[in-house]
C-alpha cells in the first residue's frame, strides 16, 4: 500500500560516493609492539590529542581523542582530571571510535522525491535542504502558528535545536528521556524533596555504607561514575542489597539479593517503610527536623507488614526485616538508589515516591554516603534577543491529563500530531535529532499514524537509523569527534567545565548541529539569535565569563573549581529543601490536590497467562540504547541480544542452547526477527529477559540489521502514568514460536 510517507531504505541509493572518509578503520601503524623484539625500536607513534567529552551516553565523560597521521581516530581515553570518569571511559566510550569510522554513516543531505511514481531520496545540497525546511516551517508558522512545530531530541545536538525552536516560538520540545525513562523518577523526587536527583545522579556511592539497588543494574548500565564508585564501595566493605528478578551483575556482588516477583516492588518498599517506622529504627532526628507528614505516613503503612508483602513479592519476611535493619544500621550513609529508567507500570511516580520516602526516613539526602547537594558552574547564555512567548504551552497537548508533567510528554506530542474527531492536528511538523523514535517510543501504531499525518518531518542524525526512513529531509550530522558543542558544566560533587572540540574535520558532507541550527535560523529570519560566525566565538565568550578561555580549555580539556557550598548538611545548621514549605513531603499535598494518592499505594499489575512470560528488558555494558548496535568495535563484543530463559522453562519447551526462536506477545505481535536462546539460572521461571536496542530492521545499518529482537516492538501494552504521562512498559508478556512465522503464513 502506498502511503503519503513511504518508508524509504537509504541503502538503495548508492550513497557514499560523495567523499572520502578519513577512515579510522584502516590503521597505519600496525601493532605498536610489532617487531620491537627484533630491535626495531619500541617507540609507538606520537598521536595528536584533542579534548572531547563522550556522546555515547548522557554521562558525558571527558576524554582525549587520539588522531593518527592519516587523520583517523586511533583511540579515545578518559581525562584524568574529570571526576565523572577519573581517566577511565566505559567500553562504549572507548569504542566511540567505531561511531566515527562506521561506513554506514549518513553522508549527505537527502530529500524525499517522487521518481517514476515511487518515493525515494535524492542527494541534496545543504542549501536546497535547508531552504526547503525553512520554507515549510514558515508556511506552518503562517498557517497554524509556530507552536505547531515540535522537536524530539536527545543528547548534545538537542541544545542547538532547542535554541532554534524557542527562537522560532514553539514550547513543544520533547525528550523521550522524560516520558519513556527518567521522568517518573524525577517527578517522584520533586514531589518529595522539591528537586530531582539530577543526571549524573547525586548519589554518594563512594562513601556509602549501604547501597540498595531496586530497578538499577549498575555494572550492566555503565553509568561510569556510579560503576567506579560501586567498586570503591565494595572495596570499603559497603553492604549492597539488590532487588531484582534476575541475578544481575550487581546482584552477584551483593550481600543480599532479593529475587523479587516482577511488578511488586512497591509492596516491598512499603513494607520496608513499615519496618523502619514500627521497629522505630528510622532517623528520628532527621525526620523531625526536615520532614512533614510523618504521622499520616505511619498510619498509612500500619498494615504493610513483611508478612503482608510476602505473598505479593515472594520475599521472606525475615529477609525484608533483615535488609531494612541493614539500612537503618548504616543510616544516614545509605542510598536507596533512585534508579533511572523508571517507566514500568504506570504507577511509577508513586513507586519512586516510596524510594524517596525511604531515603528521607533514613536521613540520606544531605549526609555523607547518602545523597549530596550538587554544585556547578553557571555558564551564561550567549547574548540573544528574548525568545517570543508561545501562545500556548505543551500542557495543552496533554488534554487535561498528566498535571505534574514538567517537561513536554513525547507521547502526547505524537498523539497531537494525528487529526481526530474531525479536528485538525495541533502539531504539523517535527524535527527529530539524536533519537531513533522507532526504537525509543512504544505505541508504534500511533507513531506511524502521526508520521503519516505530518506536513514536515526532518531527521538529524549521524546514522541511518529507522526514523530516517520516514523523513522528508534527512540531515547528516557529524559525530561528536568532529565538532564543537556546548561546554559541559553539569553540577555534581565537584564543579567542572569540559570542552568538546573537533579532533578531525567533519567527514563527508556532514555538519555540526550548531551550524545546522544556525543556518536554519538565518533562513527563518532569526539571524539575531545566532549572532556569530563560528561556535568558537560563543564558547570563548562564555568561558571568559567564568574565568577560563577557549585556549585554556583546548589545552586541559577539563577544569575543576572548588565548591562554595557544602555537599552535606553542616552540623548545627538547618537545611531548607526546595519544596514550598522547605520540608520533605512524606505526605504530598501537591499530589492530593491534583487528585492522586498523597502516599504511595500498592496495586497489583497484570500477570502472564498460562504459557506466557513477563518480558523484562535492560542493558548490556557494551551498548547504549539502539545507537551502538551498528558500531563495529562494540558489536564485536555483543553482536545480538539473546533471550535469557531459565533452563527448567527451556526444558519444558524443549529448547536447546543457541536455538533461534520468535517471540509473540499478548496482543499477537510477533517479533520481526528470531532471537537466540540463552539458558541461564540467573533468571526466574516466570520471566524472560532481553537487552534493549537490537533487532534493527533498516538494511542500511549493515551490521545491526536483523540481529536480535527489538523489545519495543513487543511492548504494545503501555500503562500511562496519570501523574506525568510516563509510558509504563513492563506489563508485556511473550510466548515462543519455534518456526519462522513468515514462512508459516506463506505455506
Amino acid at each position, binding site marked *: 500500500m502506498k502511503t503519503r510517507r513511504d518508508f524509504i531504505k537509504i541503502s538503495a541509493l548508492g550513497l557514499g560516493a560523495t567523499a572520502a572518509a578519513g577512515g579510522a578503520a584502516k590503521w597505519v601503524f600496525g*601493532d605498536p609492539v610489532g617487531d620491537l623484539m627484533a630491535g626495531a625500536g619500541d617507540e609507538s607513534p606520537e598521536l595528536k590529542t584533542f579534548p572531547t567529552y563522550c556522546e555515547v551516553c548522557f554521562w558525558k565523560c571527558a576524554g582525549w581523542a587520539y588522531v593518527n597521521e592519516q587523520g583517523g581516530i586511533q583511540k579515545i581515553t578518559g581525562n584524568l582530571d574529570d571526576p565523572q570518569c577519573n581517566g577511565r571511559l566505559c567500553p562504549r566510550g572507548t569504542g566511540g571510535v567505531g561511531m566515527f569510522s562506521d561506513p554506514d554513516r549518513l553522508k549527505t543531505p537527502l530529500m524525499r522525491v517522487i521518481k517514476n511514481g515511487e518515493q525515494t531520496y535524492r542527494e541534496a545540497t545543504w542549501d536546497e535542504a535547508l531552504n526547503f525546511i525553512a520554507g515549510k516551517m514558515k508556511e506552518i508558522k503562517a498557517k497554524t502558528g509556530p507552536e505547531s512545530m515540535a522537536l524530539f531530541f536527545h543528547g548534545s545536538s538537542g541544545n542547538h535545536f532547542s535554541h532554534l525552536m524557542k527562537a522560532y516560538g514553539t514550547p513543544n520540545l520533547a525528550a523521550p528521556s522524560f516520558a519513556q525513562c527518567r521522568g517518573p523518577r524525577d517527578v517522584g523526587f520533586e514531589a518529595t524533596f522539591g528537586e530531582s536527583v539530577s543526571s549524573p545522579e547525586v548519589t554518594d556511592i563512594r562513601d556509602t555504607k549501604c547501597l540498595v539497588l531496586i530497578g538499577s543494574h549498575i555494572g550492566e548500565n555503565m553509568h561510569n561514575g556510579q560503576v567506579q564508585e560501586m567498586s570503591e564501595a565494595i572495596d570499603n566493605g559497603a553492604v549492597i542489597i539488590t532487588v531484582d528478578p534476575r541475578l544481575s551483575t550487581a546482584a*552477584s*556482588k551483593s550481600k543480599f539479593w532479593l529475587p523479587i516477583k516482577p511488578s511488586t516492588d512497591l509492596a516491598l518498599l512499603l513494607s520496608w517503610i513499615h519496618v523502619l517506622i514500627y521497629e522505630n529504627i528510622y532517623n528520628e532526628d532527621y525526620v523531625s527536623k526536615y520532614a512533614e507528614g510523618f504521622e499520616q505516613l505511619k498510619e498509612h503503612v500500619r498494615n504493610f507488614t513483611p508478612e503482608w508483602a510476602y505473598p505479593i513479592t515472594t520475599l521472606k519476611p525475615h529477609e525484608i526485616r533483615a535488609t531494612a535493619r541493614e539500612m537503618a544500621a548504616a543510616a544516614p550513609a545509605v542510598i536507596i538508589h533512585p534508579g533511572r529508567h523508571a517507566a514500568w507500570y504506570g504507577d511509577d511516580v508513586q513507586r519512586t515516591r516510596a524510594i524517596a520516602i525511604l531515603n528521607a526516613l533514613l536521613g540520606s539526602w544531605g549526609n555523607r554516603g547518602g545523597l549530596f547537594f550538587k554544585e556547578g558552574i553557571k555558564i551564561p547564555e550567549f547574548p540573544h534577543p528574548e525568545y517570543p512567548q508561545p501562545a500556548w504551552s505543551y500542557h495543552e497537548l496533554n488534554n487535561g491529563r498528566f498535571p505534574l508533567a514538567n517537561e513536554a510528554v513525547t507521547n502526547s506530542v505524537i498523539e497531537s500530531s494525528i487529526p481526530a474527531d474531525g479536528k485538525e492536528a495541533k502539531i504539523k511538523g517535527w524535527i527529530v535529532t539524536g533519537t531513533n523514535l522507532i526504537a525509543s517510543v512504544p505505541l508504534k501504531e500511533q507513531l506511524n499514524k502521526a508520521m503519516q499525518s505530518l506536513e514536515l518531518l526532518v531527521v538529524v542524525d549521524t546514522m541511518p537509523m529507522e526514523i530516517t526512513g520516514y523523513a522528508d529531509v534527512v540531515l547528516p550530522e557529524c559525530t561528536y569527534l568532529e565538532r564543537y558543542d556546548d561546554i559541559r558544566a553539569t553540577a555534581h560533587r565537584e564543579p567542572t567545565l569540559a570542552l568538546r572540540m573537533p579532533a578531525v574535520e567533519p567527514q563527508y558532507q556532514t555538519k555540526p548541529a550548531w551550524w545546522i541550527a544556525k543556518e536554519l535560523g538565518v533562513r527563518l529570519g532569526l539571524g539575531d539569535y545566532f549572532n556569530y560566525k563560528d561556535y568558537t566565538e560563543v564558547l570563548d565568550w562564555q568561558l571568559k565569563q567564568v574565568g577560563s578561555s577557549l585556549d585554556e580549555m583546548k589545552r586541559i580539556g577539563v577544569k575543576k573549581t572548588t565548591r562554595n557550598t557544602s555537599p552535606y548538611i553542616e552540623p548545627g545548621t538547618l537545611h531548607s529543601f526546595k519544596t514550598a514549605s522547605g520540608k520533605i513531603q512524606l505526605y504530598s499535598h501537591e499530589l492530593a490536590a491534583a487528585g492522586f494518592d498523597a502516599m504511595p499505594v500498592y496495586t497489583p499489575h497484570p500477570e502472564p497467562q498460562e504459557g506466557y512470560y513477563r518480558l523484562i528488558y535492560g542493558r548490556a555494558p557494551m551498548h547504549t540504547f539502539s545507537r551502538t548496535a551498528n558500531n563495529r568495535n562494540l558489536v564485536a563484543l555483543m553482536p545480538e541480544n539473546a533471550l535469557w530463559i531459565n533452563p527448567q522453562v527451556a526444558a519444558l519447551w524443549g529448547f536447546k542452547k543457541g536455538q533461534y526462536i520468535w517471540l509473540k506477545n499478548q496482543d499477537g505481535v510477533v517479533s520481526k526477527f528470531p532471537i537466540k536462546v540463552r539458558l541461564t539460572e*540467573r533468571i526466574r521461571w516466570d520471566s524472560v529477559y532481553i537487552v534493549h536496542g537490537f533487532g534493527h530492521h533498516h538494511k542500511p545499518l549493515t551490521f545491526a540489521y536483523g540481529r536480535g529482537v527489538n523489545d519495543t516492538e513487543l511492548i504494545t501494552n503501555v500503562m500511562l502514568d496519570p501523574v506525568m504521562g510516563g509510558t509504563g512498559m513492563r506489563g508485556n508478556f511473550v510466548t515462543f514460536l519455534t518456526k519462522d512465522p513468515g514462512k508459516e503464513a506463506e505455506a
Partner: protein
Amino acid sequence: MRYAMAIDTKKCVGCSDCVVACQTENNVPIGYCRDWISETVDGTYPNVSIELRSERCNHCDNAPCVRCCPTGASHFEDGGIVLVTHHKCIGCGACIQSCPYEARYSHPDGYVDKCTFCIHRVRKGEDPACVSVCPTNCMYFGDLDDPNSEIVNVLKNRKFKTLAPEAGTSPQIFYLV
C-alpha cells in the same frame, strides 16, 4: 623482575572495556581479541552465583608455546613477558595448539598474535591499556619481585587462584576471589 597481573573477580563487572581498550591500543583487528571475558555460573535459581573474569595470555613461567615454537619467534622478554616476533613467525600454529588458555590467534596478516602485557606502554612506565581503562579498577599490574608494589600487597592480603594450575604452566595472572 617478574611482571604479573592480579584481577579482582569481586569487582569485575564483565563490561569488556578491557577488550575494547586492547583493541584500539594494539590495533587488534575487529573480530579478534587478545583478552576476553568469561562468566561462570554456579547453582540454580535463586541460589545462584557468578564469577566474571577478564582473561588473556598468562605469561607463564613454564610456557609450552615458547618451548614448541620451531623458529624462536615465541620467546621471553624481560620480566617474563611472553612475546611473538612477528617477522620470525611462520604461522605454523603449534603454539596455538599448545596453549591451555586459548590465548593465541592467527592474525590475518599471517602471524600468531596474543597479549603482550602492553610492553610498549610498560617500558614507558605506564600500565597496560586494559588495566588503565578498567572502570572498576579491578586489575593490578606490577613486578612480583618488588615487595612494595601494589600487586604484591594485594596478593599478600587476598585469597587468589590461577586458571588451570594442573597444566603445570605456572601462570602469572592471579584471580582474587
